C-alpha cells in the first residue's frame, strides 16, 4: 500500500516531442506528489509538485496531471530537449509527514536530437 508504481522504466523521445511518465499509488492518505529530476553523478532535484486539490499544475514545459479517483498522476514534458535527458522519479508523501517520501522506481528519459 505504501508503493508508488512508475512507468515506463525507460523512454526515448525525439527532440520537440512530448515525454510522458506515469505513476500510480494506493495509499489514499498521500497528499503531496513531487517529481524529482536526477542527472548522472548528481543528487535528485525537486522539479515540480502537486497536491490533490488540483488536477493539473504547469511550470514552463513541465506539467503534472493528477487523477485523484484513479490514484494516478503523470509528468508531461512538452517540447522535449536533449537537456531534459535524465532520470525522473515520482514520489508521494503526506504533508504531515513529508519525511516519509515514497519514491517510484524511476524513468530514464533520453531525448534524441
Amino acid at each position, binding site marked *: 500500500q505504501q508503493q508508488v508504481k512508475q512507468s515506463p522504466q525507460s523512454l526515448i523521445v525525439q527532440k520537440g516531442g512530448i515525454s510522458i511518465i506515469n505513476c500510480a499509488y494506493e495509499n489514499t492518505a498521500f497528499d*503531496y506528489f513531487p517529481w*524529482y529530476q536526477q542527472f548522472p*553523478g*548528481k*543528487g*535528485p*532535484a525537486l522539479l515540480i509538485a502537486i*497536491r490533490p486539490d488540483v488536477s493539473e499544475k504547469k511550470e514552463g514545459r513541465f506539467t503534472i496531471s493528477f487523477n485523484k479517483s484513479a490514484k494516478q498522476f503523470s509528468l508531461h514534458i512538452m517540447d522535449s530537449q536533449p537537456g531534459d535527458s535524465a532520470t525522473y522519479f515520482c514520489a508521494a508523501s503526506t504533508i504531515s509527514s*513529508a*519525511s516519509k517520501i515514497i519514491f517510484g522506481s524511476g524513468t530514464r528519459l533520453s531525448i534524441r536530437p
Partner: protein
Amino acid sequence: SAVISQKPSRDICQRGTSLTIQCQVDSQVTMMFWYRQQPGQSLTLIATANQGSEATYESGFVIDKFPISRPNLTFSTLTVSNMSPEDSSIYLCSVEVRGPYNEQFFGPGTRLTVL
C-alpha cells in the same frame, strides 16, 4: 530551497573498513535524512537524523552498521561500518525545508565503491 554539500564526493574503500560521510546545509533545518541509491535504482531511506535525539532507522538498517551523528542544525554524518562490496552505492543526504509543502532537497551524493 537549501544548498547542501557532501564530503567526500566519492571514495574507494577496502572491505572491512569504515567511511564517514559528511553533510553540510547552508541553513538551519530540523529534519535531515540519509538515503542509499544503488546503481540504476531508486532511493531508499536509511534513517532520519534529528538534532538532539537518536536517529530513527528504517526497516533493514541498523545503528551498528550505519551510525549517524547530528551535532547541530546544519550538519550530520553517516558512517558506513565494516564495509563489504554490497555497500557499494551512492549515499545521499537530504533536508526538509518547512513551508506549504515541507519539501525535501538533496545533496550531490557520495559515490562509494568497496573492493
